[in-house]
Structures are given as C-alpha cells and as structure tokens.
C-alpha cells in the first residue's frame, strides 16, 4: 500500500484570485485545507520608515498608496492624527467634505470589492456593472484633486481646495459624435455637487440591480453561505473590525460609537450579520453602500447651503493663500517656513482611527517636536484580517480559500505597507 500524506500547495503570488501579491502555502489533505500559511511582505515599501525621513506633509501622498482602493480614508486617519497633536480645528465645511469623500470612498471600495469578489467566485458580470459606477466616483475624485486615484486631497487643517463649480465633460471625437456623448454629459453640466446629487439619486436603483444578480443567485449562495464562519467571540479575539466584525453580529462602527468629524450630525444605520459567514459579510457590505449613499446625499445638501473656508487659517499648519503670500511680509515668511522646513508638531503621541471601508484604519504617531514624525505606525485592518486566514480556511475545500480571501477584502498596499 502506498504511503499517503498531505501535500503542500503554493498559492500565489501571481494567482489572479490572490488579490495582489499574497503567497500562501496550503497544506492539503485531498481537497481539504489542513493549514494555511500566508507569506506577506512582497509589496513591503517601509512606508513607516520613509515617513520618518519626510516632513509631515510629504507623507500624505504615501497614505494614498497604502490601501489603494480607499485612498482618501487613509489620508483622513493620518491628517486627523496630526491635527490631534497640533490641536487645530478643522473648519466645519472641510469636515463635511471629508465625510462626503469618505463615503464616496467607501462606495468605491465596496464596488471594487463586489466586482472582484464576483470574478473570484464566478459571477463575471458584476465587475462590469461595478466599474461603470466607479467611473462616476473617480471622476468626482478627479474633479476635486486632479487625480483619479492618489488624490492627496485631505491635508492637516482641512482639505486642499473647495469643491469645483464645474465637472469635466466628455469631448466629441472620431469615435463618439456630439449626439452620442450628450446623454453622458447631462449630469455633468452643473457643479460637482449637482453631479453627486444625481449619482445619489441613481445609485439605490443600481444597487438593486446588483442585488438581483447576486443576492438570491443559487450559485452565489452555494459558494458563500456557511463558508468562513467567524463567531463573535473569535472575531474579537482575532481583532476584527469593520464589516468583518459586523458580519459576525457585533454592532460596532466607529462612525457611530466614537464619532469623528460630523458623523454625529448625519443619519445612517449600521447593518450587522447573523451567522458570520461570507454571505453575511457580502450583505453587510451591500447595505453599507446604501447607507453611504444616504450620507452622501445629506452632505451634498448641507454643502450646497453652507459655504465657508475649507482650510484652517492657522499658518503654522496650513499655507496662506497665494495672493496674501505675494503681498504680505508675514504670510511670505509663513509660506517660506512651511515649504522649506515644514510644520512642527508638538511633542507627544496620538492614535487616530477612522472607520475605513475595510475596518478600523489607525495611525499611531509619536512626535518629538521635530518637523518629521519620530515614529509612525499604520494599523491596517487587512493585516489583522489576513492573520486569521489560517483559522478561517481550516477544514474548508480548496475552492473556498478563494471565497474567504475575497470576503476578507484584502488589499496588499496596506497589508505590506
């Protein structure tokens, strides 16, 4: 009789369902996973070390590149940490803009997630729908910051610029006539807020479309239901946050429980799951998109009626405007100091956390009073979730590994940092 033993399978780092550069060593007994050992760090860029040699403001664009699917939320945590150390007030309009873009980011992230998760599990159509709506939202990113992904829009003390009055429009070309592009430009004829208002009105219907495709789909349910169950006790032990924790039935959302910016002034609900399986996490994320859309709508309404400054007027933190800089001695000095030496952050330490689309994204900074951080630690939600991979996949079939990676919503920019 031949000797039977488990065999080891190397999954990734170039596997399309590995969501980036995950390498996983799987020990299989037949088709059942006995042990999973994720090897991470293939995308390690030492962001935290680099930040120690850059001035405070220079690290803002690095934050975009952490979780490159929810760019502005990363910046948010970083800017909040600096603001907490500096004890500066952010103007109320900037706070609303931040909430607005946090929620846009959440929708962006969840849309990408549902599209890619669909691809992993076998629902090919989803990604096409999801990217159609993502296009509108990255256009909103582009309108405020000039970049579709790596925005660097949030700055310590507020946001870089106020919302624009006009949206970019599609141009006539060899391939698209004026008549063909007219319907595309209809929603773009007004300001960014008009565009987002139109989007918020359209979006619930589109979400219904996605749900028609997936929620009661037999194949989808066969692949997701009862796969990767995490009990609430285990979820706490493993440090889960965000949709992973809520999927296990614990109603914990920083936006409600420890509100930052103006989350205590907007109205929304927190969805929670029942069994803690992949399907529940899917449902939680779908509902979160609906709730985010509600918040977007409320922010748009508020922003329409309340103009005001979007950046702190403390010139030790935020640069003065161009005109003042060119005509006043004092502003000129501030500008020069900020642009050469950068701001000085008083000695101390702060931890600021935001409810990132993937969970709790935290920035822990230690400042010794210099113009650069002494130590920066990025608490990435995906890192913690992936560390529970072994526990979640044990005893499942090989094909379920893909489902579980998908339902954890991992992005390697933030895990490897």
């Amino acid at each position, binding site marked *: 009789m031949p000797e039977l033993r488990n065999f080891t399978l190397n999954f990734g780092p170039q596997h399309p369902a590995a969501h980036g550069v995950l390498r996983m060593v799987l020990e299989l007994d037949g088709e059942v996973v006995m042990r999973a050992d994720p090897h*991470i*760090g293939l995308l*390690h860029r*030492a962001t*935290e*070390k680099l930040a*120690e*040699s*850059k*001035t405070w403001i*220079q690290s803002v664009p690095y934050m975009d590149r952490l979780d490159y699917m929810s760019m502005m939320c990363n910046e948010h945590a970083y800017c909040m940490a600096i603001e*907490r*150390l*500096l*004890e*500066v007030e952010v103007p109320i309009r900037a706070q609303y803009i931040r909430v607005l873009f946090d929620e846009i980011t959440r929708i962006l992230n969840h849309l990408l997630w549902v599209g890619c998760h669909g691809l992993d599990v076998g629902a090919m159509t989803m990604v096409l729908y999801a990217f159609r709506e993502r296009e509108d939202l990255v256009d909103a990113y582009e309108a405020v910051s000039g970049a579709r992904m790596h925005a660097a829009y949030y700055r310590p003390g507020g946001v870089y610029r106020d919302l624009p009055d006009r949206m970019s429009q599609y141009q006539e070309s060899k391939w698209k006539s004026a008549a063909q592009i007219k319907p595309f430009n209809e929603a773009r004829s007004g300001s960014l807020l008009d565009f987002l208002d139109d989007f918020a009105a359209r979006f619930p219907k589109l979400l219904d479309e996605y749900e028609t495709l997936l929620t009661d789909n037999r194949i989808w349910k066969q692949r997701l239901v009862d796969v990767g169950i995490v009990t609430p006790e285990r979820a*706490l*032990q*493993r*440090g*889960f*946050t965000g949709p992973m924790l809520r999927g296990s039935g614990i109603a*914990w959302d920083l936006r409600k*429980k*420890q509100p930052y910016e103006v989350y205590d002034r907007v109205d929304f609900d927190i969805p929670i799951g029942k069994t803690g399986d992949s399907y529940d996490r899917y449902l939680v994320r779908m509902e979160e998109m609906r709730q985010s859309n509600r918040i977007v709508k409320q922010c748009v309404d508020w922003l329409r009626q309340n103009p005001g400054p979007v950046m702190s007027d*403390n*010139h*030790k*933190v935020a640069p003065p405007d161009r005109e003042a800089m060119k005509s006043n001695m004092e502003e000129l000095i501030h500008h020069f100091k900020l642009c*050469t*030496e*950068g*701001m*000085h*952050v*008083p*000695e101390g*330490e*702060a*931890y600021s*956390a935001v409810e990132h689309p993937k969970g*709790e994204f*935290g920035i*822990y900074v*230690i400042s*010794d*009073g*210099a*113009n*650069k951080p*002494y*130590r920066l*630690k990025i*608490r990435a939600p995906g890192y*913690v979730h*992936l*560390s*529970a991979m072994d526990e979640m996949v044990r005893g499942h079939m090989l094909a379920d590994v893909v489902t579980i990676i998908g339902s954890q919503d991992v992005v390697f920019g933030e895990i*490897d*940092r």
Partner: protein
Amino acid sequence: MSAKLEALCQNLQECLGDRLKSLKVALGEVTIEVDAADYLAVMQTLRDAPELAFEELIDLCGVDYSTYGNVPREGPRYAAVSHLLSIARNWRLRVRCFAPDDDFPSLPSVTSVWNSVNWFEREAFDLIGIVFPGHNDLRRILTDYGFIGHPFRKDFPVSGYVEMRYDPEQQRVIYQPVTIEPREITPRIVREATYGKANNA
C-alpha cells in the same frame, strides 16, 4: 477630562494597583506604562477584569527610542506599544512596556491573551528586533526571505545595506552592496516646545 476617561483611570488604578508604573492622560488618550515583569499579567487583567473589558487588541508596535528628541538616550531603548479597545465599554487604552535589555530586547508574548497580536509581534520582531518568548511562530514577516538586520531601528539606514539585481553573467538574481547614497533633503530639526503650538500663532 471627560467623565468616561476619569472612570477609566480610576478603574485602572483599582485593578492594577502597584503594577501601574505610570498613568498619563493627554489629548484625550490614556497611556499606561508597565514593567516587563508584570506585562503579561497586566494584559490578562486588562482583558478579563469586567471594569476594564478590553476584548480587542487593536495594534502592537515596537518603537526604538534611541534618537528621541535628537538627544542621547537615557534608559531603555526599545518598547512595545499596544493599543487596546473595549467594545463593551467603548474606550481605548495605550500600554507601553520597555524591554529591559538593549542588547537583547525581550518581552513576554501576549498571544495567549489576544490571538490578534500574533502577526503584530512577528512584525515587531522583524522590524525592530524585539523577541517575544512564548510566541510559537516568531518568524520574519514583512522583510525578504533571508533578510539580515532590523530595518526600523534608528541606526539602520533608509536605503539599507544591500540591493538586488539580475546578473546576466551568472544568470541569476544577486545581492550586492547598495549603490545609492542616502540623502536628506529637509534636515530634521527639533524646535523649542512652544514652536509648533497652534495657539501660539
């Protein structure tokens, strides 16, 4: 200080007593320091005492304090800083524990208290070089296979010591000493304490 933070401080003092080396409240956050000898027991109490109820460990990181404030360091160099969160009580806590020996920094592992700390301790070992006895799988995690040194220590250069390239003659990937010079565009400056204060503007 809000009523909630006061309650937290009081509960901490009651539950931990002498084991509390220091308790500081700054910027709305509570920081405690404990001795390495008490570390594991304190963490256990923090999780299990119903008045504290820190069910979740959010983060743990190693810190190298050797160049703090641009002045020579007195006292231990390495510390592990953890952030705890209580879902039931809705409060947070920062726990700092200095490793006693600078040449071989070592702190007991808290993996038995919170499983989520597993990868954080591996990371602190990998990047800072703190060893966690009691951890059953203390391998490097973020750096390359076969990496030498602990890159987040302050005496490790940002550009590292070795670089990797493909060598056409040997037809394989080789490591060689770095060819780039480290440069500092904006110097690091520590000003007097009131310099960056917002209300000083």
